[in-house]
Structures are given as C-alpha cells and as structure tokens.
C-alpha cells in the first residue's frame, strides 16, 4: 500500500502519544454520539454511511488490494442478510454476534464459488461472473419463500436484535451495534492488509506472473480474496437489512446497490480502508444535500423526485469520470495530500 510512504510526513506532524490521545478522544466521541445526535442523524446519515463503508471495505479488499472485479457486491450482502435472518429465526440460541459471523461465512462460501472463474480469466470478464451472482441470488430470494420464512410480502425483518439481554432496536442501540462491528472488522481488515495475505494480494494485483514466480499460491489467494470480500459484504448486508432498513427484501440488494458499493470504492479511493467511509459519506449525503438544496431554493414544485434521482446519477457518473481522470486514488488520496501539506507547512510538501 502506498500510504505507508505517503503518510510519513503527516505522521511526523503529531507525535505518537498525541495521535493515540486523538484516537481515544475520537473513539469516545463516536461512542457517546448517540447521546447528542438525534434520531434523524443516526438513522439517515450515520448508520447508512458506516454500513455502506463496511461494504466498501469488502469490495476494496477485492478490487483495490487484489485487483479483482466484482459487480455483485449486493448479492453477497443479500446472502448475509437472508442468512442472518434465518439464523436468528431458526437457531434462537445463537447470539447475535455469532449469527453475524456465520452469516458472513455463508456469504464467503458463495463468494468463493463465484470467484472460481478468476482462476482462469482476468479483468472485467470477471464482472460477468459476479453479475451472474447478482441476478441469481435476487431471483433465488424472490422465488423461494423459505428464505423469508414464507412471509407473504417476501420481506425479512430482524426477529431479535439483542446482546446479553440488551435490546438494540432503538436507534442508539443499532448505531452502537454498527459502530462496534465495523470497528472490529476495520481493525481486522487493516491487519489483513498488513499481513502476509495482504502483501500477497497486492503482489497479485501488481503483477501476477511475478507473484507466482516468488512462490505466492495464486489460485488459493484469489479465492481467499473473494471469500474475505464476501464475508465483509455479508456482514454489511445483515447490518444494512436489520440496523438500517429494518425491513427489506431481495430487491433491497439490487444491481444499483452493487453499483453504489463500487462507486464508494472508486470515489473513496481504491486500496484505502478509510477512503470507503469517505466514499460512503459522499453516496449517502449527495441525495440528502440535493433534496435540501431544492427545498431551500423553493424549487420542490419544479423539480420532482425523478428529476433529483436523474441529477444524482449524472453527478455520481461525472464524479467517477473526473476522479478516474484527475485522482484515480480517490478522496482518500486527496485527504492524504492535504495532510501532507499541513504537516510540511509553511514549506511546500
């Protein structure tokens, strides 16, 4: 990862103890936030941003670090969501954290299967295989009522959401569940990236022949990348379904959702973990911002919802194209550049 070299001047700006203190303060602020933030902020901004950021980490581990494509992130999210639903429902003795983990593992197995073509082909051809997953699972969860416990509307909602008897269904509870899960998985991802596995994946991405020559097991590493990525997507999907939407169905995880995750990675910056949250914030905030802007200007009568959605599409598309041309490493790289400049100030970085 390039950030190890790039962030060097920035870290020099703050001594280690100061950074630790900052991290602790930030951590406390994040945990205490529900006491101050209102329901709207938690429900409509913070929870979706963090959950989609987590889904972004999943795709980024695959795309940014291992250089493999997926257009089917939402499919693996839906597997996580439906697995978690059935686990919570059918195995009442299974505590919530374990249910999330098992749901993630089930998604990982599916990811492994749809990652098999990566052993023979490269590049965007893989997009087809993951698109296949996208359509297949949307169909599966719509056509087999067993997955939604034969509910008439084919929707799922969390049967229970509690840890050690504490009910997590109010907004602060869901927020803390999301934050805690994401923090743990972020820490895990950071360690995966820095571990031998992460280095192997990056070597594969940069030049797979060279990676094979130095003895990296190409096939098993690629499949592992798909499995890890799908695990993250699965957990994110379960959180998205239960902590954010509350009630969802197979179409909550359609192709547009997959594109959303892809855009998060592209906008946030590939091969950056923190960038995913910047990308997610962009994706979550842009529609809210547009709606508010139109309301503020008093143009709600002129611009209807359909107009805003189309405008949003144009904006997202333009952002992607401009970022790909100007800053292929996304918002995370922009942030790094700003930090580097501040660290070197008043000199030029």
């Amino acid at each position, binding site marked *: 990862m390039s950030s190890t070299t790039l962030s060097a001047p920035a870290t020099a700006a703050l001594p280690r103890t100061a950074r630790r203190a900052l991290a602790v303060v930030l951590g406390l602020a994040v945990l205490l936030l529900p006491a101050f933030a209102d329901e709207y902020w938690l429900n409509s901004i913070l929870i979706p941003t963090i959950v989609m950021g987590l889904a972004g980490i999943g795709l980024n581990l695959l795309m940014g670090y291992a*250089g493999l*494509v997926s257009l089917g992130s939402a499919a693996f999210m839906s597997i996580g969501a439906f697995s978690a639903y059935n686990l919570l429902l059918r195995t009442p003795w299974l505590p919530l954290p374990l249910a999330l983990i098992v749901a993630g593992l089930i998604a990982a197995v599916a990811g492994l299967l*749809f990652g*098999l*073509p*990566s*052993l*023979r*082909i*490269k*590049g*965007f*051809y893989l*997009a*087809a*295989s993951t*698109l*296949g997953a996208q*359509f*297949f699972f*949307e*169909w599966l969860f719509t*056509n*087999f009522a067993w997955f939604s416990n034969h509910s008439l509307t084919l929707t799922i909602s969390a049967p229970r959401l509690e840890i050690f008897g504490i009910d997590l269904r109010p907004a602060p509870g869901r927020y803390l569940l999301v934050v805690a899960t994401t923090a743990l998985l972020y820490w895990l991802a950071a360690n995966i990236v820095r571990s031998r596995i992460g280095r192997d994946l990056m070597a594969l991405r940069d030049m*797979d022949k060279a990676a094979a020559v130095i003895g990296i097991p*190409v096939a098993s590493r690629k499949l592992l990348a798909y499995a890890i990525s799908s695990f993250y997507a699965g957990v994110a999907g379960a959180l998205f379904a239960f902590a954010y939407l509350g009630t969802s169905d197979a179409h909550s995880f359609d*192709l547009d959702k997959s*594109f959303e995750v*892809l855009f998060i990675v*592209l906008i946030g910056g590939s091969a950056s973990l923190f960038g995913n949250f910047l990308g997610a914030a962009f994706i979550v905030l842009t529609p809210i911002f547009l709606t508010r802007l139109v309301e503020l200007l008093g143009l709600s009568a002129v611009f209807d919802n*359909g*107009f805003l959605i*189309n*405008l*949003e*599409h*144009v904006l*997202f*598309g*333009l*952002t*992607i*194209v401009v970022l*790909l*041309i100007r800053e*292929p490493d996304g918002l995370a790289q922009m942030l790094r550049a700003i930090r580097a400049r501040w660290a070197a100030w008043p000199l030029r970085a």
Partner: protein
Amino acid sequence: MQYFLTILLSGLLAGVMYAMVAIGFVLIYKASGVFNFAQGSMVLFAALTFVTLTEHGVPFWAAFLATVAVMIAGAVIIERLVLRPLADRSPLTLFMATLGLSFVIEGLAQLLMGTDVHQLDLGIDDLPLDIAGLQLSQFDLFASAVAIGLVVVLSVVFDRTRIGIALRAVADDVLAAQSIGIRLPVIWRIVWSVSGVVALIAGLLWGARQGVQFSLTMIVLKAMPVLIIGGFSSIAGAIVGGLLVGATESLADIYIGPLVNGAVSNWFAYILAVGFLLIRPSGLFGDRTIERV
C-alpha cells in the same frame, strides 16, 4: 415438437435483438479494447432523442439523421473529454469510466427528455405469420433482416475499406498503428460514432417492441453473456452468441422454469456464460489473446 420449434425460433429471434446490442460492444472493443458499459444508455439516449423528435412532428428520416448527428457529436465529446485523458490507463479503469459515463448519459437522457414511456411505431405490424406451421412474428423477421443487413455492411466496412483496415490495425497493435500514421483519436471518434448509430438502430427495434423507456438500458446486461459466449472481438461471435443466449433462455424458461418456481431467464444466460468462462474463456469465436491466468 411443433411447440418446441416455435419456442426455439422465437428465442432465436429475440437473440437477434441481443446480438444487435452486442455488435455495438464488439465495435468499440475491437478498436480500443474497452468494454463499453455505456452502450445500454446510448441505446436509451438515441431512442429517446428519436422519439422526442418524431413526437414533435419531425418526419422519420429527418429525425433519424438528426439523431445520428447527435450520436456523432456525443462520440466526439466522449472521445475528447473521457477517452483521451484516460488513453494509457488499464482496461479496468476504462471500464469503470464507461460505467460512470453510462450513469451520466442515462441521467442526462431522462433529465432532458423525461421519464415517460414512449410508444414507437415503425410501421411494421407485429402480426404472427404462419410459416410451415410455425408461428413467427413479422416484426421479429424484420428485426433479424435489419440485423443481418447491419452485419453485412459492417463486415464489408471492416474488411474492404481503408478506415476498416485502420481500425483493425489499431485493434491489433496500438503502438504499431500509431507509428504508421493512424490517428488514434480519429479512430475512436469513428468507432464510437458507428456504435452510436448501431445503438440507435437497436434502440428503435427494441423501443418498437417494448416502448422507449428506462428498461432499454438493461439490455446492456443481456449483451454481456452474449459477448462472453460469442467472444468479445468477433461480430460473427456476437450474432451466434446472441442466438445461443436467446434460444437457451426461452427454452430454459419453458422447460427448466417450472421445476424451480418460475422464470429463469434473468440469470440463466449468466450461468451459461460463467460455464463458458470456466471451459473456454475466449468464447466461441474470440481471439486467443484474452488475458488468461
């Protein structure tokens, strides 16, 4: 048996329509190695432009020519603003760029021309014809005639003209082509224009079938398995792939569908394509140059 043949034939004819879209992809892929995800939105944009013009009283051919002009202008703009700055990037980056582009084009199309479903009448009746006991739609036959005509024209252009040979040179080796004086931006403008025109024709045929509306962009997703099965770099492959996907899809819907609670045509082509990727990654007619592991 009669029933089977009817299903097979209607599937094949639907496959011709898939092939129409796939040809647009192949053109751009051959000349620039880009999988143009925006092809579907180009189909929508072209069809919407055409319909909007005819609804304002513009005669058919004038509207057709005006839309062609719009698509060519679009191609020039895309080449200048998107393709040129990304010229030396990886195919994956370009793919992502066309994904972004597809959002821009479909968003713009609907911002400018609305989200209503437009009816499009090309003046060909959709009457079932009875040929040797098989039910065939007149419209489908017309569509396949158009597709075959298009393929013939494109193959002649590719094989016989100076521009076509330049296109193939670029497809073969970009650096070598440039070094003998072929101008890459010109080539790109030409292929994007031509695939814009192909998008218009596909848009008209699809639009006459199911109305000009947002769902037209979805055919890009159908074209992907077609391309994988046929091979990305072959126009003939696009046709055969289209026919294969069309036929297997409708047969699977009839014969496998009832076994698994409902229509399988949404994903069946993809699973077929994944099978191809595993067994024959370059498709039926593709060059062997596809990057393999």
